[in-house]
């Protein structure tokens, strides 16, 4: 049993930390940075950050050197996530391209696809999104109805996608469409590398309950893709989808480390807030609640490390990732809910009037409702755990 990082890993951390201190946006670390709320300006900000990461050699650390990566180990990826969470680094606008599309193309893409897309993903020149969910295919992804019909060397695509992160900024989409209506369910689905900048593609924003806009609906009206833009075989896209998910080998590391960070900030809040001149932490009811949260936050981090150990030993992640996802997302929601309660009636103050900087707790609280839904609802995770890990019989619906 060993919880330490190797000297090499710590050197890697030091290198990254030094780079971040020098390259994060002006005023980022001391909280004086002003990021524009104008959507267009924010998009430029995110693309600039992506570009900066690329220039520093930090955009795609796990990639092979020949594609411009540094062949980081899994543990170095972990360190990378810890450091990014620590400084609350800006969002990675090309996450889908770097962590999903490019590794999949490296594995099963054609030579043409590799040379055409991978470099531009790395530089951030082309931002990618994912075209999976549809209004009637959420938990049940195999129910997608978007159709692609062959027309010479072209495919005519019609349908609607939803929950497309950064779809409004994306240049290309890793899109699932049904190419065979007679095959049921998982069969007959094909993956296309769709050009988003064409008349047949329209994105509309989804405004979330926290007032933010991360997701989009994507309407496909006779959108065009070419044979050369198919990944793997026609009708065999389900396998590609699974392969793509396998590339997220750090699982929900980012969320685990964020939870740990939020817990630590909650401890500070509980010591700072006062009622009748006593810090809230002096209140036995609050203290008990905080010990419970501490215990489970530690538990979820340690569970994650235990699963990570398995991944390191087996070379690939197992179904245990579902357990991490379930526990961390539910606990995050609970912890953030508690953060609102602890502020008393002042907890309802929002945005610039919130009692802590940047409406940190209120915004994270509202956002947390999406975490137990996106990426597979908690109910779906429980089915997966019950069936794949415990071997219980499958639901009758499937």
């Amino acid at each position, binding site marked *: 049993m060993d919880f330490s990082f190797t000297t090499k890993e710590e050197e890697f951390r030091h290198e990254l930390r030094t780079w971040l201190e020098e390259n994060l946006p002006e005023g980022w670390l001391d909280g004086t940075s002003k990021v524009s709320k104008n959507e267009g300006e924010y998009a430029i900000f995110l693309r600039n950050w992506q570009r900066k990461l690329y220039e520093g050699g930090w955009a795609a650390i796990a990639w092979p050197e020949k594609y411009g990566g540094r062949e980081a180990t899994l543990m170095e990826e972990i360190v990378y996530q810890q450091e990014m969470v620590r400084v609350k680094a800006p969002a990675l606008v090309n996450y889908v391209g770097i962590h999903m599309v490019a590794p999949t193309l490296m594995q099963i893409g054609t030579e043409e696809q590799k040379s055409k897309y991978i470099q531009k993903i790395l530089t951030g020149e082309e931002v990618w999104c994912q075209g999976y969910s549809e209004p009637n295919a959420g938990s049940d992804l195999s129910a997608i109805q978007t159709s692609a019909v062959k027309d010479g060397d072209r495919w005519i695509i019609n349908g609607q996608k939803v929950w497309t992160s950064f779809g409004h900024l994306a240049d290309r989409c890793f899109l699932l469409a049904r190419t065979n209506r007679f095959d049921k369910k998982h069969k007959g689905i094909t993956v296309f590398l769709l050009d988003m900048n064409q008349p047949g593609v329209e994105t509309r924003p989804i*405004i979330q309950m926290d007032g933010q806009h991360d997701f989009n609906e994507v309407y496909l009206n006779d959108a065009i893709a070419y044979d050369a833009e198919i990944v793997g075989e026609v009708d065999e896209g389900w396998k590609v989808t699974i392969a793509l998910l396998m590339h997220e080998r750090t699982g929900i590391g980012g969320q685990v480390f964020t939870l740990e960070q939020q817990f630590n900030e909650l401890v500070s809040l509980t010591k700072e807030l006062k*009622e009748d001149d006593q810090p809230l932490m002096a209140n036995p009811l609050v203290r008990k609640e905080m010990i419970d949260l501490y215990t489970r936050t530690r538990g979820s981090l340690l569970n994650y490390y235990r699963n990570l150990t398995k991944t390191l030993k087996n070379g690939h992640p197992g179904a245990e990732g579902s357990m991490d996802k379930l526990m961390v997302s539910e606990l995050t929601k609970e912890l953030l809910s508690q953060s609102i309660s602890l502020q008393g009636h002042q*907890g*309802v103050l929002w945005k610039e009037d919130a009692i802590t900087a940047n409406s940190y707790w209120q915004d994270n609280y509202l956002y947390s409702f999406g975490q137990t839904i996106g990426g597979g609802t908690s109910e779906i995770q429980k089915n997966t755990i019950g069936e794949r890990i415990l071997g219980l019989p499958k639901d009758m619906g499937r």
Partner: protein
Amino acid sequence: MDFSLNQEQEMFRGYVRKYLDDAGQTKTAREFIKGETESLQSLLTGMAELGCTSINISENYGGMGLGPLDLIPVLEETGRSLLPGLYLETNALVVPLLEKFGTEEQKERYLSEISNGTKSFSLAWLEPGGSYNPSGINLVVKEENNHLILNGVKSLVPDAELADHYIVLGRTSTGNSKEGISLIIIDRTATNMSIQSQKNIDETRRLAELTFTNVEIPMNQILGPLHHGWETLQEGLLSFNAALSAVIVGSMEKVVEMAVEYAKIREQFGQPIGRFQAIKHRIVDMKMDLETARSLAYYANWALESNAEDRVQAISCARLFATDAFTRISSDNIQIHGGIGFTEEIDCHLFVKRARFYENYLGSTEHYYNQAATALGWSNKDEAIISV
């Protein structure tokens, strides 16, 4: 034994329900969020015409002279449609205070205004620091030439711009205990008072900070005994919390209906999701919470109306259960709706935000735990003693 609202009460509910349904239920709240208050104003006028604002006002002042139980249907329906505005505060907090502690002059003026629906009240209690305890009251009230001079800041005043009058908690003598606090009625238009709006996570309710700089008020604007405003207020809070519980029951009922409806029509894996026990049983848990909240709320209002011995614990516990359960089931409702529940477009989030608004509104959760414990004789502390 008859634990139900009577026929007249249920019939009146029907009128209010229909009226608010016709107005598009949460449509008014959504317009209010966008800054359009016209439809709210006309809705409130309509409700006054229905009689909602006069139910619990004495007949002397143009009211119907009815009690807390008669208020329940209206309260529930306002909760159901997340109605913005100060109906709850005005009719369930200020009216009982005026009825019991108001001078004849105050009653003549304010009760008549409320009864005919032309005026509403807000409450200026919290100050920067956010404590509802007596030690949190630092707004200085000095007596000069038979006038009161107010200096200080009030924070998180609900719907300050909508209100015509405020009841302000001020300190009329030195110290930081509950002694020396007085309730003062102030018009929104008082000079030397500035209003600065504050952003509320529940956008169907607005908040504001009021700054008092030598605001001068006639002595006769004090409500109830001088220096004993804290005890006076407790009386109003009993009524307020019984009513709040009913408002929440109305909201909870709507939340359960939303969950049931969606679970019947939304299909995944070739089945309506309500067929899956993960969904079905969660909605059942929500329904159990709703019915328990309802029983506790109805009983609390009965206990208030009948002046029952256990009214303080009944009201505290009804409030505690309702606020807690409302947060729980409105959150669950988002989960049941999945992705769509996370969007601004669907009402789910409005109920969560209202639940959070009520959670520590006019007293913290812990305060009400202590109040219930004291009323039950489980506590030696007098932190929550009710002077009735």
